[in-house]
């Protein structure tokens, strides 16, 4: 039983109850319309997306909590600790606080673009969740080219950043937005090239197939170690975390393109940041670390454990590395990662031709 059937069951049951009430009241036509398969399908998809959003939200909140606690230990301090068990509800309290903040739009901002940038940001981030399965049975959509879809959606955000940075009418924001565009061209190509090796070995762009291929042979981190490293470096740039968080470089650009966003917009951007962090870690797990495969525990739990471990690496990087400069990220991307990615591709081809996978 997968997520669709599960949700369909619940929806059918609920619709059955409602139909019984409607029939009892006497609205037979409405009950018949509600019971039709199209409506059931629509309601099922709606329910599925709510479940998915809730899970994404919980994972993001947990990630923020994990980041706070882990970063706290990295820095020899405690992190959030007062609200809730071990400070877990602190993020929810912070989220509620952002809701209560004043709603400020800079006077000279381009209002339309300014308002739409966070929407695109959070929208694209939620769209990422659609394509990421938690397990072979817990997914929203099983796309044939799921991997391509994920990275296509990933690449929307620099556009939102550029838009928001331009619309804020602030010099820092503008520079932040421009940096985002510059960063995009530096990491995107090594990222995709590092992925190509995995695609070659598994022979599919479908995420389920890739995971199954790993379950059959071995985790792709073993033949594709170089690819994994390149992927991790590039995904850090992709989700804009600290060695490569140039668009919001705190020390030089205040908060970069976020500078003028306050209140719940800021909260949404923050949430989107962690959605993307979740998506990045999830893709790393799916491509290189065997996805949801693992003994004893349910596959969903295994998947989330692996995601949190990969996210721990991202936090660890943040806790021990400095920010690189904008011209240096181009150097890293083009001069170091790209040749390495080529080498990695050759390795994949050799493995494939030797017939080991």
């Amino acid at each position, binding site marked *: 039983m997968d997520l669709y059937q599960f949700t369909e069951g619940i929806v059918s049951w609920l619709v059955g109850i409602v139909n019984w009430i409607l029939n009892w009241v006497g609205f037979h036509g409405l009950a018949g319309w509600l019971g039709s398969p199209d409506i059931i399908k629509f309601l099922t998809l709606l329910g599925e997306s709510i479940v998915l959003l809730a899970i994404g939200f919980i994972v993001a909140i947990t990630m923020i909590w994990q980041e706070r606690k882990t970063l706290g230990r990295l*820095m020899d301090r405690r992190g959030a600790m007062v609200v809730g068990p071990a400070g877990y509800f602190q993020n929810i309290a912070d989220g509620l606080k952002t809701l209560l903040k004043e709603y400020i739009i800079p006077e000279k901002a381009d209002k339309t673009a300014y308002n739409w940038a966070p929407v695109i940001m959070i929208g694209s981030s939620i769209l990422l969740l659609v394509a990421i399965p938690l397990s072979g049975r817990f997914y929203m959509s099983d796309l044939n080219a799921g991997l391509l879809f994920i990275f296509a959606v990933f690449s929307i955000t620099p556009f939102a950043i550029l838009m928001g940075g331009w619309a804020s009418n602030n*010099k820092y924001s503008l520079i932040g937005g421009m940096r985002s565009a510059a960063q995009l061209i530096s990491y995107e190509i090594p990222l995709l090239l590092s992925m190509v090796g995995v695609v070659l070995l598994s022979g599919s762009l479908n995420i389920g197939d890739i995971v199954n291929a790993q379950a059959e042979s071995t985790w792709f981190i073993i033949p594709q170690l170089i690819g994994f490293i390149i992927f991790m470096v590039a995904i850090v740039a992709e989700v804009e975390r600290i060695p490569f968080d140039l668009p919001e*470089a705190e*020390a030089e650009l*205040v908060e970069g393109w976020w500078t003028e966003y306050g209140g719940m917009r800021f909260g949404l951007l923050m949430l989107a940041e962690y959605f993307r962090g979740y998506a990045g870690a999830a893709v790393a797990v799916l491509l290189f670390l065997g996805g949801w495969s693992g003994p004893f525990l349910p596959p969903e739990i295994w998947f989330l454990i692996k995601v949190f471990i990969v996210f721990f690496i991202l936090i660890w990087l943040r*806790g021990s*590395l400095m920010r*690189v400069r*904008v011209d240096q990220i181009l150097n890293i991307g083009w001069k170091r990662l790209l040749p390495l990615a080529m080498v990695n591709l050759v390795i994949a081809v050799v493995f494939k031709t030797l017939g080991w996978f």
Partner: protein
Amino acid sequence: MAEMWINMGPQHPMTHGLWNLRVKVDGETILDAEPVIGYLHRGWEKMTENRVYPQIIPMSDRLCYGSSMTWSHLYCMTIENLMGVEVPERAEYIRVIVLELQRIASHLMWLAAFGTDLGLLTVFVYCMRERELFLDLLQSVTGARMTYNYPRIGGVRNDLPPDFGRDCLRTLDHFEKKLDEYEEIFDGSAIFLMRTQDIGILKAADGMNLGVTGATLRGSGVKIDLRKHDPYSVYHELDWDLCTHPDCDCYARYRVRMDEMRMSCQIVRDALKKIPAGPIRVKVPRNAPKRTAFARVEDPRGEGLMYVIGDGTDKPYRLKVRSPIFVTVSAVPIMLIGYKIADVPAIMGSVDMCLGETDR
């Protein structure tokens, strides 16, 4: 992108205080820079003209929040020069010890801020943790954590506490181990080297002409340290070397300060070994003679100088403070021009800003 002026400050994470760096950028490249200061101007020098000599000691603590001991010590030394007072030897040794501990604490605060400027918050907490140990030491001597009010005209306020030598040595041993760890985090990181090497070049000739002093100038390879070349207190009796680095860039300044922390540990150890017994404070006259005097010290940030004119009363006629950062900031444009806007925090972090003494 067209050229534009960006105001970095007065409220900006890079500033470490309240000042404004106007930079003219073309894209990301800095074409021109102009520091704007004065946001913290308190008229300190004028305020001192209405206070009697001992009352100015706690005020001079407030000149710099990072290293208040050096400033109150400099003030006391200036007034001792003015009054012609001879300070007991034990007091001089105690002063050297607390000054060097203060130097370590100040450099640690600089290192913490430098790490934060480059995007690494972890080091901030680590450095503050170790700074806390030195603050605890200073607190056990002076009774306060930041504004010590410890040196007095003609000596120091009170003697060292009984177990101070033992605690101090233990702290220094622990600290030197931690210093290795910082070097692992900074020097071991390729990103740190990428961010600091060949950035913010200040040639030795430029630096000397622009009046830059202290670790910034020693980072340009000039072997000048006032503790060596204009010795005050008992520095000439202690065994130590000055630290320089020939690279002229941010990395060299970082290296010099790291070496200086080690050297300060050595000075403190040596001073604890050589400290004599005896009186710690001598009574000074209330009124200063009619003449002028000045004193120079090697502040953690550079050369500090105070120039005082006595007019025969118990208040100074004029007290002028030469703050090292005041001059270094005026030399900042030459370090910044031609680099990227992302290098501004690295360069400004490497000169160790302190606005309290700059604006006075």
